[in-house]
């Protein structure tokens, strides 16, 4: 993997590096959760850890925060080793802010005292500043249970940001909110951490959320970081079939590849990958209907989804149905014979 660095290189920490994770392993009761995890995050960067539930991403976040001990490996924050062989910095000395999935607001303290909790001495102006930052100035005296879900979320963010952490960790912070609020809050949080230039690591299982929030996304599958790249690269050049399947929707076809060409039931495609018997990933939006050409498929189903339509097509010679999208304005009727072609370069991976 290109992310891998030798220890010698890593110890020569670069000035702009906010978080460095090297060779971290973790098992619970002999059951492996994380395997040889490497991750480097630059100062001020927004990063997302994306993976299905149970993949170990939250455990990784807790290891960074110091709430969990790694079995092996090194964690460095701002160039300082906080966990490693013979080194252990307790969570309270790491200068890391963490927003919990359940927010973990102190039920016996009001909003203002919750925000001020991490400050070494009472600082009313700082508290007021943060409450204003998250738009809760008028709720300072309210207790957590008197606030709505979105307000609780913003309060938890303000509390985590109050001690000016060098690193902010967000553990699925939007998952308890409804869709509209989630979009609004994600944008707001991204704006806040960008304005403060706080390095941020977001844990999520929602691909869209990860893409919209982060500069770079690490896909975590079964305890391994499979790919760490900007969203566009992740989507267009997935490192493996698993990543391709997890990030966005993927139609998988069999094919025979030779160099940059691949023979499939949809004709000869161009793209990247090893030669030989392969599995080809075709994104739904890479398929399109060509007028006038001789038909090679039947429209099995047409679903209207607002701005676009979702079609299921049965291509001659292929067992499974393929999913594709097209603008809702284009007409399509189920049962119609059409000609389908691939409009873009694709990726393929060796057949297992």
């Amino acid at each position, binding site marked *: 993997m290109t992310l891998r660095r030798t220890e010698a290189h890593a110890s020569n920490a670069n000035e702009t590096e906010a978080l460095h994770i090297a060779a971290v392993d973790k098992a*619970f*009761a002999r059951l492996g*959760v994380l395997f040889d995890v490497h991750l480097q995050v630059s100062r001020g960067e927004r990063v997302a850890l994306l993976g299905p539930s*149970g993949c170990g991403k939250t*455990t990784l976040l*807790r290891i960074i*925060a*110091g*709430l*969990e001990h790694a079995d092996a490996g090194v964690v460095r924050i701002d160039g300082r080793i906080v966990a490693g062989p013979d080194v252990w910095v*307790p*969570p*309270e*000395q*790491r*200068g*890391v*802010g*963490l927003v*919990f*999935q*359940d927010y*973990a607001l*102190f*039920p*016996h303290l009001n909003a203002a005292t919750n925000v001020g*909790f*991490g400050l*070494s001495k009472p600082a009313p102006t700082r508290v007021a500043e943060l409450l204003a930052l998250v738009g809760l100035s008028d709720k300072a005296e309210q207790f957590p*249970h008197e606030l709505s879900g979105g307000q609780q979320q913003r309060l938890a963010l303000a*509390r*985590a940001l*109050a*001690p000016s952490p060098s690193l902010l960790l967000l553990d699925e912070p939007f998952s308890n909110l409804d869709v509209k609020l989630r979009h609004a809050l994600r944008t707001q949080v991204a704006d806040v951490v960008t304005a403060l230039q706080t390095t941020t690591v977001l844990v999520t299982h929602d691909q869209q959320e990860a893409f919209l929030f982060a500069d770079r996304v690490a896909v975590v599958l079964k305890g391994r970081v499979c790919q760490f790249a900007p969203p566009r690269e992740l989507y267009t050049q997935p490192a493996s079939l698993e990543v391709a399947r997890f990030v966005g929707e993927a139609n998988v076809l069999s094919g025979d590849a030779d160099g940059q060409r691949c023979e499939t039931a949809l004709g000869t495609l161009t793209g990247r990958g090893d030669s030989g018997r392969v599995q080809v990933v075709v994104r739904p939006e890479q398929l399109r209907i060509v007028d006038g050409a001789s038909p090679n498929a039947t429209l099995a189903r047409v679903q209207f989804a607002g701005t676009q339509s979702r079609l299921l097509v049965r291509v001659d010679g292929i067992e499974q149905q393929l999913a594709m999208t097209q603008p809702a304005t284009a007409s399509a009727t189920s049962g119609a014979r059409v000609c389908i072609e691939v409009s873009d370069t694709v990726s393929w991976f060796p057949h297992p």
Partner: protein
Amino acid sequence: MGASRRPSGGFALAGAAWLPALLVLLVPAWLLLRATGGDGTGLTRVTAPATLTLLVETVLLAASVVVISAVIACSTALLVARTDLPGRRIWSILLALPLAVPSYMGAFAAIAAFGPNGLLAERFGAELPEAYGPVGAALVLALLAYPYLFLPLRAALLGVDPKLEESARTLGLTPIQTLRRVTLPLVRPALIGGALMVALYVLSDFGAVALLQVDTFTSVIYTQHDAFDRSGAAALALVLVAVTGCVLLLEGRARRTWRGRLTATRSTAVSSDRLIRLGRWRWLATAWCSLVVLAAVGVPLMVTAVWASSSGATCTHCEPLGTLALNSVTVAGLTAVVCMVLALFVVRYATFGRHRRRDLPRRLLYSGFALPGIVVALAMVFMASSWVPVLYQTLPLLVVACTLRFLPQATDGLAPAMAQVRPSLEEASRTLGHGRLATFRRVTMPLIRRGWIAGGVLVFLTTIKELPATLVLRPTGFETLATELWDLSNEAFLGAAAERCILIVCLGVLPMLVLLAREVER
């Protein structure tokens, strides 16, 4: 994965949690030594036919007290928590008061009030049933022990998430069906835990059963001791330990069949329109609560007051009441504090971990609550004189004995409170820059305070009432209210004895009132 993320707490926590449990376990070990020692006839007592009879009688008594207590506690807890009973906040306090009444006082009152020559018979000239015998003992014990069920039940009823009952109503259940199919199953853990405490209370009680002339293991063990049949007494005590073990196993099974888990919800004030309207039944309900409080607290206090005022309350050779009260408060206060500290470790150890064995110390400690005070006291005497002779007849040893007996009351108060503290709350504090101690002080403590103090108060008032262990273990010349009450009643200075009895109740009631007055705010 959730549970495994909880911190294990390390060896220090494990040590502090296991220490009291191991001390309690030393008691049966000592008993075994005792029973097999001497002329070796001790163990034959275990298999004697008389022991079987005793076993049946004790178990029957404990079972009937649990049933009667459950009826009283369920009905009254439902009334104060779920209906528009007039003055239900006041009733919540009054119904908890029997906790402060010593069982010997309740039994004395029953004998004095009822029976052919009793106060009530004299006044009204009516024939009344005898107080002596198993029926009288069961009633007296149930009236004094039901608060162990009432208090957790009331708290659990108030803690049930209203949404659950509301959804049951929308699914077509009537209020009564909702109560039976949703509410009661949800408060079942409280019901089982309370029933356990009542059963153990009966097993360890001496005062009431002795006065009402009923044989249980505890009363027979005392008689054996007085007859210097030490190995026989030890053998019987071993059987009692076995019975306690069975009760604990039953309780564990009953808990395990309940697979659900109450999610911690914030306590919502029960809005008045969710209360069941009693209508004209309110007077009957009020009468029922009055009857319970009057029988459990009113009659004993009245009888004692009559004695204190009539027959020569002055006692020339007695310690001043102030000194006695101070001594009692010292022992009870120290025990309460020690229990609160230990309970913190025991409950912490049990709560933060997923292995069932982490709950073992907490459960083992219940056996201390079931053991007669004299057995624990004599075990302490033996251990102190063998290993740490300097401790013999000192205040610390007395406090240790009372701690071993009453620690379960402290853990019972603390455990539900600790369960409410989600791990993420403490973790949030850690990531915000506070160490373990600061986190405990600023986050955990405020959240558990109420239950923690409640447990301490319960220990305080049971220690104030405690007699046998104090009699055996007190330093020479150190008198408490209970020990002098004992001496005086033996010398038939009933007036002076009654005075001390009332003082014991008052000292127990005071902290309870302070605690409950804040508790019933919700």
